[in-house]
């Protein structure tokens, strides 16, 4: 879900996505960069993102990922599920 959300902002390569998640979560979510890749592969397989090698300003070609229309829909679905879960937990934790 987090990957999809990140890509909402625009196409990005794997390294960029990892950095973005780390930064935006105020360094709370420390993720091993490499562990993103299986997830990226899975999302690609499901058809929610597409990938393409492109050149960067640094001169190194990197594989960029983009959100697809299906991916956008999936993001909405996942977000609502997450909100449901969060609400449920909050209700349990509410002081009696």
């Amino acid at each position, binding site marked *: 879900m987090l990957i999809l959300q990140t890509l909402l902002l625009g196409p990005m*390569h*794997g*390294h960029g996505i990892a950095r973005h998640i780390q930064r935006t979560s105020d360094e709370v979510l420390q993720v*091993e*960069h*490499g*562990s993103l*890749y*299986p997830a990226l*592969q*899975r999302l690609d*397989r499901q058809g929610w993102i597409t990938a393409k090698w492109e050149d960067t300003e*640094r001169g*190194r*070609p*990197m*594989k960029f990922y983009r959100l697809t229309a299906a991916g956008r829909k999936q993001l909405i679905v996942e977000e609502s599920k997450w909100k449901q879960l969060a609400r449920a937990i909050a209700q349990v934790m509410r002081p009696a």
Partner: protein
Amino acid sequence: MWSWRRRSRERDLEREIQAHLDWEADEQIGRGLPPDEARYAAHRAFGNPTSIREICREGWGWTSLETVIQDLRYAWRMPRKNAGATAMAVLALSVGIGVNTAVFTAFNAVALRPIQAAHPQQLVNIHRTEPDDPSAERFSYPDYLYYRDHSQSFSGLIAATGDSLALRAAPAARRVTSLPGRISSLVGFQFPRQLSGSAEFVAGLFVPENYFLVLGISAVRGRTFLPGQEQDFRNHPAILLSYSFWQRRFSADPGLVGSTLNLNGVVCTVIGITPKDFMGTWVNVPDIWLPMASQPLVQQGFDLLRRPEVNCCRLNGRLKPGIALEQAQAEMSVLAEQLRAKHAAGLKNGGPFTILLTRGSPFGWRPQPQVMATVMLIMGAVALVLLIACANVAGLQLARSAARQREIGIRLSLGAGRRRLVRQLLTESAMVAIIAGGLGLLFTWWTLRLLVVTVADSLPTEWGTLALQVDPDLRVFAYVLLISLAAGVLFGLAPALEASKPNLTSALKDEGASIGGGPGRSRLRDLLVGSQVAVCLFLLIAAGLLVRGSSRALRIDPGFETRHILGLDVEVPPGLGYSAAKAATLKRQIIERLSSLPGVRSVTAGHPPLTGGLRTASVSRDGQRLMVNGRGMAFYYRYAAPNYFDTLGIPIVEGRLFTPEEAEAKTPVAIVSEATARRLWPGRDPLGQRFLLDAIERFSGEVYPAALTVQLIGVAKDIRSVSLAQVDTSAVYLPKPPDQIGDSVLVRTEGEPGASMVEVAREIQTIDSNLVVYAQPLGNLLTGNPAFVFSRLAAIFSTGIGLLGLLLASVGIFGMVSYAVVQRTHEVGVRMALGAGKGDVVRLIIRQSLRPVGSGVAVGLAAAAAASRILSALLFGLNSLDTISFVGVPAFLLAVALLASYLPARRAAPVDPMVALRYE
């Protein structure tokens, strides 16, 4: 084995990871780290690239080809981790598959064999069936000519008739034939031995001149018969030798083609050699092929070419292209009707019959029910063994998968679909199965080759050569592959399904004991154990029944002496020029000389009972012919010399025997059996009664009663001379004129008949060494009949198979039960920690382990009881339940299971409960 797609994905990922690392390294350098440290930091931030790659790879193999390949590689790796158990599984399965394949190959080679010819699918067998004589299926030669000349559906019509011929002046005739081989003596089957003779009998086949042309077969040396040569062959017979006969008897002498052989006193020129193992339309390989045109010359006084009533020939035809079987059949039926009108109405061929065409095969179209039953039995038995082997392996798979729960749990949690996992596990099973299939195939070839060689060696040469093609063909390969895969799916599916149940959390915690190994929670394992027990039990009991049945058949008392009688077959080889009178004198001399030998009690001229050659006659009493179903009731009769009854030990219960004077004078007297007397004169004294005998079968050259009125002078005890299965329904004995000595002589000895053979041989040779004499103890004759041999073979085979099944089942049960108990070690600890006594826990475990075995026994016994009912109806000499099998085998299997559960339970019990608990 890697697909290009996979390779490109690998490279792409590699490139991406490298790009990522470089990017991160650049950033670190930008922050001021030296290049080495930057790279190191990048790696650290990234994580372990190898495991990342692995996980990505796991997720990739979604295309079926990649899946299969990956499964295969995985399947190849996994079993090697557990080599011992896998080897056992493969071995068990290969035995099961091997045995099945062997039976199938043999069946294939024998039953499904087509005729050896060009385009065999065009060939048909032609039979005739009569309403009251289903065994009649041959045609006379003139009839064959009629069909050949008038039918339009065939491009060629051929016939064949076989007979034995006397071969003389070849390299010295053997005095004693080859001794029976191991297999035949195992079955209790002994062949007659040639005691004397200057000639040897060989198997000959008479065929029309177009035979080889129609079949499309050419000689491997010299040439075959050709149409248009009838004229030549009539006076100068030309013959072909079979390859094996040429090799065996003449050591493949190349000079033989073109030279001559003396057959039945006629000089025949050898013009060619037929291909190896060629048997044409016949069941076995004849030694010599002769043209039909030569038959009257070679078999003097027995001209088949001009006898429309002698049905000697088997007919085959080659359909013209485009003509269907049904068309040809219709045409033949029309021709048959026309032909029938030409025959005299009263005789056989003038009576009603139908023509039937079937696919070309060396065998007749109607297998006897006993043969079919035996074949079905054998195939059923081996299938059951395979089932046991599969259950065996399934159990092993189950046990193994229990140990792999952790690995399976990981794969499930990584997103592998259940179906994918099942497929993977099935691939493993399939791989094991295919390996086992390969081994089984090897096992089969070796066994079959051994058997064929042994059997071929033990058949005496007089029987021709039985050539079995047991080389594998496409059908056999396909069959083996099919059952291997079926077996793989069979034993792999259930454990795979069970193992892949998504119970992730406990799997990840490595609670191997709770899936597939838990107490009573594995229904599947219980089922496997129980079913193995049931099947094995069933198999063994059935085998036991068969063994008992056939040994019981041996003990049936036929009513006459069998243990001290030597049966002699005395034949004058044709071509010697002996007149009938001379032959009779020689035989009489033989009888006299043999009677005076010490150790010989009496000698009589007579045909041994239970060996066929039966003649029947209708009987009229008080002027009334006894009828049944509109035709004369058939009574069996035979001619018996005065000392026949004494020699065979048949008591006369009323009246007296024939006197030699009565036999000499051909006085019209008769002796009947008790059953016959009861039937003809119920409640009355039969002695002195008169009745009329009229023979039903009339063969020229034989003596038979034609409207003969006889007076009853004695009643003999009932015997079984027609079939061992039942007492004769009727028997009439007529006095045998002393000059009517047939080919058979029976010698009653004091001691073992086999011991007297040497003396008998010597005496006969001093009288005339040209006479060909075969000898066989009478007991052997009885066990030598096909029905008996079949039931014996079936018994031996099924016992072997049954024991094999027992071995497999025992091993399987032992393995599964002990494994299950080992898995429950922690339970022992728990229970003991909770205060249970050691003995109680052990007893509980044993009891629970034995439960599936017990239910298996119950099911097996029920099935076996049902089977014994069916079997007794089909096979000979079976009845009642056999205690040894019904009690012994279950006891054995229970003992195995008991041992299997007791040993590990006992080992588990003294363990410190804490250790057991921690085992989890």
